[in-house]
Structure formats: structure tokens, C-alpha cells
């Protein structure tokens, strides 16, 4: 599903985020990416969604070489990838429901079907009762679950979380991880970046530990 081979990423200005990273993630797998802040976790995830392009090496997602992807093809790659960020990137000028509905606006679904799917996604993250609220009224954990609902409403094959539990209390963090694991159980490939060792150890899943731009 996702395959990195000898991927290096150097940002303009000379900062080398990844030196040489190789790994591959099978369809339906769940893995954690860990490492100190600045170890390159975010860069690794951004390369998968073509938010960044590799300086060298190849990133293959769904059989597509992301590094060589044309600009116009990027949106179609991203429609198969659900992205959840530490800052949820929610839109505060519209309701919870409309936030989740956003990715369906360009899916071409009939409005009734789009609304049905939106409710289903909200139901899966336990926010069905809050659909009319503004995201600003939600707690940190609820906002993160809202971001997950938006990421999965399009039924992507890959779900990516970049520090989705940072800034959350232990209970909310555990709940968020349960949601990710739940999607993995129905066949979604999941990759979560976190610096929280204890969370990772609790699940006993595959761990990609980044150290100085390489997988240790």
C-alpha cells in the first residue's frame, strides 16, 4: 500500500529531515511512527500525501510514484488518503456536519447520499449528537474525533494521523486511538505518528522508529 525506498528529504535551506528511509506498509496494516520531535515523523507522513516531494528515493502509494505525480493528479491521490493533524484544520465558519460533508462536495454524490454518509462518519466517532454545533464548541478530544470523521467520510484506503493525541488528556487520547484501531479493523491501512511511547507499547503493533533521518 505504502512503500518507501531510500527516501531522502532536504528542505530548502539545507535542513535534512530524512536521510534514507525504506519501509513498506501492507494493505490493512496498522503501524506507529515514533521518534523525538524533529526526527522527521511529519515529513514522512507529508511525503505519502504529496504535501512534500522526496529529494531522492521513491515513495509509492497505491502503486503510484508520488514523487513523479503531476500537480493535477495530486487531488485524486489525496482522496484515497484520510489525513488527521495535530491542529485539526477544522473550519470554524460552519457546523460540525458541514465540516465532515466538505470532502463529499466534490465526490459527485447526490446530496441525500452525502448527508447519509456524513451522519455515518459522525456516528463512528461518537459525534452524531453534535452535528449542528460549531467546532469551536467542542472539546479538544471531540475536535480531534471530528477531524477523523472528516478524514474517513470519503472511505479512504489509508488513514494517517500526525500526532493526533498530542494536547489531549490520557483518556481522550486513548479514545482517539481506539477510533483509529476501529477503522483498521474494517480494513483501512493506518499510520500514526506519535512521540507517546506508552500509547504505542499498549497496542503492541508495528513501530517505525525514526532516528536522525533513518529508521532505527
Amino acid at each position, binding site marked *: 500500500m505504502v512503500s518507501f525506498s531510500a527516501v531522502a528529504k532536504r528542505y530548502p535551506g539545507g535542513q535534512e529531515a530524512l536521510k534514507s528511509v525504506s519501509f513498506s506498509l501492507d494493505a490493512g496494516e496498522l503501524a506507529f511512527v515514533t521518534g523525538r520531535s524533529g526526527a522527521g515523523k511529519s515529513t514522512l507522513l507529508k511525503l505519502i500525501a504529496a*504535501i512534500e516531494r522526496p529529494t531522492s528515493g521513491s515513495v509509492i502509494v497505491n502503486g503510484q510514484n508520488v514523487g513523479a505525480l503531476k500537480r493535477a493528479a495530486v487531488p485524486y*491521490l489525496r482522496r484515497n488518503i484520510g*489525513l488527521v493533524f495535530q491542529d485539526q*484544520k477544522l473550519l470554524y465558519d460552519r457546523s460540525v456536519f458541514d465540516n465532515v460533508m466538505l470532502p463529499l462536495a466534490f465526490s459527485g454524490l447526490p446530496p441525500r447520499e452525502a448527508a447519509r454518509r456524513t451522519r455515518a462518519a459522525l456516528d463512528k466517532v461518537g459525534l452524531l449528537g453534535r452535528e449542528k454545533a460549531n467546532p469551536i464548541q467542542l472539546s479538544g478530544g471531540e475536535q480531534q474525533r471530528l477531524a477523523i470523521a472528516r478524514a474517513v467520510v470519503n472511505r479512504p484506503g489509508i488513514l494517517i494521523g500526525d500526532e493526533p493525541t498530542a494536547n489531549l488528556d490520557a483518556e481522550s487520547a486513548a479514545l482517539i486511538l481506539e477510533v483509529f484501531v476501529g477503522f483498521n479493523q474494517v480494513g483501512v491501512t493506518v499510520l500514526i505518528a506519535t512521540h507517546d511511547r506508552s500509547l504505542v507499547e499498549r497496542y503492541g503493533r508495528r513501530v517505525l522508529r525514526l532516528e536522525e533521518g533513518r529508521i532505527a
Partner: protein
Amino acid sequence: MNAWLRQHRQAAIAALRRLGVLNTAVIGVALSLPAGGYALLENLRGMTGRLELDTQISLYLQPSAKRAEADAIGRTLRADPRLAKVRFVPREQALKELSGVQGLAEVIAALGRNPLPDAFVVTPRTENVEQLSAELAGLPGVAHVQADAAWARRLAALANIGRVAIWLLSALLGAGLVAVTFNTIRLQILTQRAEIEVSKLIGATDGFIRRPFYYMGLFQGAAGGIVALGIVAAGLGLLNREVRVLAQSYGSGFRLEFLAPGDALAVVVFAGLLGSLGAQLAVARQLREIEPT
């Protein structure tokens, strides 16, 4: 196809919601100048069109000229191949015609004697009226020559200058419309920065993101065009109150007409297209810079 239409409808609705009253008013006021000028010019053209534009030359004889001299001049004129028509207006007939004009009868009665000379009215075949006039003025016994249609020609020339001025004004204000729309859309893109970034992250195509802004430019321009027509209509309405008073004093029912339906539609369509152009320029410049990080 259905989904495509739905997306366009959504983009159009989103654009309509964001339409600013102030920007529309600015565009409307700017466009009302050339549109109003054009309406006035069209009215002027209608007026000059009704006038006799065939040039006529009037030859006034010296008041002391005898009828025999007048006959001699008449023979010379009729023999001239450059003249299509020659009409003799004896001084008695001229006085009678003048007495028929409202208000002048009393003045003429007060004069006691006929102050008018005999005259010829000729219609030339040639275009070179100036030279012909000068030649005719040289005939013995002719006191004064006047080319009657000169003022009508001058009016037409003035109208042509006005037309060029309107085109210049339209071009300038059209460019202004593009600039105003460019700036509005640029600011709108900046305020929607977060939404655009998120849309790109979740797989919106560039076309999907651009669409509402194109519609916004189109609608804003067209709405400005409609406002301009409203201003022109209101302005002509105010002018017509006074025009009617003036026209009635001449016994005329003349009034300023609004733009023809085709012209009015052209104003709105053209304004819409210019707005859309401004939006495209802004979008091309601004949208690439907003990328998720």
C-alpha cells in the same frame, strides 16, 4: 453530468452569498458614466437623424438689388452644372414665411418696412461646399452666402467626438472594473485561505476551488452592470422632467430614451465578462501560493 451541474450550482450559490454590496455599487457607479453617455449620444443621434442633412446654400442678394439683377443671377445659377436645385425666394415671400413664425409677426409689423433681401436657395451636387460658397459669394449682387447644413455637420462631428470619448471612457472604466474585481477576489481568497488549504488537503481539484471565485467575479460584474443601468434610468428620468418642459415650449413631445434592450443587455454581459476576467487573473496569481504545509 448531473454531479457536474450540481457542483456548478453549489459554486454559484456560494459566490452569490459572498457578493459585496459596496463593490457592486462601486462598479455600478463607474459603469453608469459610459452607459449614460452612450444613452445621451444615442438620443442625440436620433435627433440629428431627423434633420435634413442635405447641404443647402442660401444666397442673400444686396437689398438694393433690382428684380432684373436677381433674374440674371438666377439664370447663371441654373446654368451651373454643380447645382442640383435652385429656388428663388423673393423678399415678400420671405417676409410672409417669417411672419408665420410664432412671436415674430409683431416684431415685423413694428419694423414698418421689409428688411429682408431677395434670396436663392440652392442644393449643390458637389461635396466641396466651402469652395462653391466662396465662388457664389463672388457673383455680382450677392451680399452674403450661408451654407445651412454646416451646423448639422458640426453637430454630427461633435457626436463623433463624443462617441470616441465614450469608447475611451468605457475602456478605462472597463480596465478599472477588472482591477476592482481582481482586488476583491484576491481579498476573498485570502479570507478563505483556511478553507482552500483544507480543500486541497482532502483532494479538491484546482478547478473545484477556482469555480466559486470565477462565479463571484462574473456575478459582481453583472450586478454592477445592472446597478449602472438603474443609475442611468434614474438619471434620464430626472433629466426628462426638465427636457419635457423645454420640449413643450417648442411644441415637441421629445424625451430622452433609455438604452435599447440589446444595448442594455450588452452592458450587463460585458460587465460580467470583465468581472470574470478580473477573477481569473486574481485566481491564477493567488491560488497556487496557498498550499498545505
